[in-house]
């Protein structure tokens, strides 16, 4: 039967290809949407996990912009007093409060950006996954650099290097962070005071990364920080809340894409059903012959349903392959339309996503094939003699 199904589909190659193409388009849209959705959530969670903090304390302003800058590295538009670090650190249930001064410098010649982060040893209480070759900066002029930056600039441990974008400034590489697959791979970490003096912002920081002794104490810590004296100048952003808020923000895009994928699937299903109905009409005599020589209704039903199913599964597989091949383009298009996107590959072929898409394609095939298969199996064997066309 499988052989018959494949040969029947191959009989009208162009029609089969166009029909499967419709399904492929719809499944590609669905796969991209699902893979993006899962990749986006995974990427967001990964970035926040790599940040190592439960709470982000930033200057007043848009918390999402602040989170984006803290995660990806850029210039901050405003600053916090360094004195607030003690206030935050002394708040009950705060395990670590790590101050950061972050600034990005553009090299006009290359157009590249270098992100400098002034930090104290407290950062190690947050970045627990860091593996450092060498040691954390212990003296002024020491540098801790991300693996990508070290590789790109060919910086070696212990080397005295000129800091890019900072006229005449230099430092000694005291440590290199092994690859984290995050933004840390691109950053240059220095003692906080060095960065503050380099950018002429003494006693100022851009943000604080706060880790709690337990995530359950989030509400009390946030309330305490918001109601303290410094609370008027600080924006206290629980990262779990930020995660869900950003997810909600992209929900609209997701919904839109979901609707497009659903409509495409329905259209493909309707087109498929129509194509198979036409094929059944063309093959009336052939189906009649099958019935006349002893094929049961169930057999004919299975044959037509099988053909529809095969078209859908082939189309679905092709759609998934196309979506994977075109994932970079799709991702770039989506990144341009979303307020915040995490680093890394967002559209990946997860086995579960592939299986789900193939399953949906098969379900569409089953639904689309029901009517044609029903009509075919209801054909009387007498059609074999009375109708023209279909069999030699």
């Amino acid at each position, binding site marked *: 039967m499988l052989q018959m199904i494949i040969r029947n589909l191959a009989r009208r190659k162009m029609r089969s290809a166009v029909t499967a193409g419709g399904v492929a388009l719809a499944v590609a849209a669905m796969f991209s949407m699902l893979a993006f959705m899962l990749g986006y959530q995974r990427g967001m969670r990964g970035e926040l996990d790599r940040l190592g903090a439960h709470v982000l304390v930033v200057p007043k302003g848009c918390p999402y912009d602040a989170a984006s800058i803290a995660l990806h590295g850029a210039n901050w538009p405003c600053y916090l007093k360094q004195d607030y670090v003690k206030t935050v650190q002394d708040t009950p249930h705060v395990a670590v409060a790590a101050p950061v001064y972050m600034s990005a410098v553009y090299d006009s010649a290359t157009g590249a950006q270098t992100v400098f982060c002034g930090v104290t040893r407290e950062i190690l209480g947050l970045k627990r996954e860091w593996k450092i070759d060498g040691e954390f900066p212990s003296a002024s002029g020491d540098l801790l650099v991300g693996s990508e930056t070290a590789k790109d600039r060919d910086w070696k441990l212990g080397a005295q290097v000129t800091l890019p974008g900072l006229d005449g400034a230099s430092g000694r590489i005291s440590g290199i962070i092994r690859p984290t697959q995050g933004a840390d791979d691109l950053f240059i970490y220095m003692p906080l005071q060095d960065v503050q003096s380099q950018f002429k912002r003494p006693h100022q920081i851009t943000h604080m990364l706060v880790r709690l002794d337990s995530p359950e104490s989030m509400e009390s810590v946030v309330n305490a920080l918001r109601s303290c004296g410094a609370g008027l100048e600080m924006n206290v952003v629980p990262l779990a809340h930020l995660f869900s808020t950003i997810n909600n923000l992209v929900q609209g895009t997701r919904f839109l894409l979901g609707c497009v994928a659903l409509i495409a699937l329905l259209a493909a299903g309707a087109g498929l059903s129509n194509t198979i109905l036409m094929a059944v009409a063309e093959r009336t005599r052939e189906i009649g012959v099958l019935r*006349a*020589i*002893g*094929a049961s209704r169930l057999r004919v039903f299975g044959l037509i349903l099988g053909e529809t199913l095969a078209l859908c599964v082939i189309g679905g597989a092709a759609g998934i392959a196309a979506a994977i091949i075109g994932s970079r383009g799709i991702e770039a298009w989506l990144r341009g339309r979303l307020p915040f996107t995490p680093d890394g590959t967002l559209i990946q072929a997860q086995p579960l996503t592939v299986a789900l898409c193939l399953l949906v394609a098969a379900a569409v095939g089953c639904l689309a094939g029901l009517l044609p298969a029903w009509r075919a199996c209801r054909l009387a*064997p*007498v059609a074999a*003699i009375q109708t023209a066309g279909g*069999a*030699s």
Partner: protein
Amino acid sequence: MASLQARPSCGYSDGWRSLLTNPQSAAPGEPSTGAPLAVAVRGVTKVYRRGIEEVRAIDDVTFDIRRGEFLAITGHSGAGKTTLLQLIGAMDTPTSGSILINGHELADMQDSKLTRLRRDEIGFVFQHFGLLPTLTVAENVALPASFGGKRKPPDVKALLERVSLQHRMTHRPSELSGGEMQRVAIARALVNGPSLLLADEPTGNLDSGTSERIIDLLQSLNGDGLTVVVVTHNEALAAKSDRRLLLRDGKAEG
């Protein structure tokens, strides 16, 4: 060479035994032998509706076909020959009357049983051959056997030898001549070992030389004990039959 033997029908023996003692017998072309009945047609009428018009394609036809008989159904175009063959072949149902195949009343059978009957008891040969273009000759011949009911795979090679087409096993129907296609169709009709072979204008699309080979083949199969019923315009074919049933405007004439 495969030899075809007349064999007892599968599960329908009680029916045809009762027919042996059935005093009602068809008037036109009553077979002379005392062989058991393969087909009994009793007062069969088939009416088609075309809009408000009623067409009596078959009008109160009664006749019997004995096992091993070669019957030719003849008549002008539109006389109802093909309709009658469809009714005997369990492909259509009469408006009134009854048809018994190997003693089994078709009207009492559900679709699944009719399907089994067509698969196991009846071989059908179409004027247009009815071969599936996507399958090879061997696959076309084996097709009815794949519909179930047979544990042993069919001896397709022997069947194709029987119709002298063993060298064409892997060819597609499009690569065959009309006569070859019809011989493949005959081999396919025989694959499940039917007791009854129905052929609708088997030489209708063939030239006279090729027709002769088909006629010889049908006669040879009948000689092996197979009951053969052909609808034909071909006088040479009708002349080779044991008996003719002439249809005129749906009515049987002796």
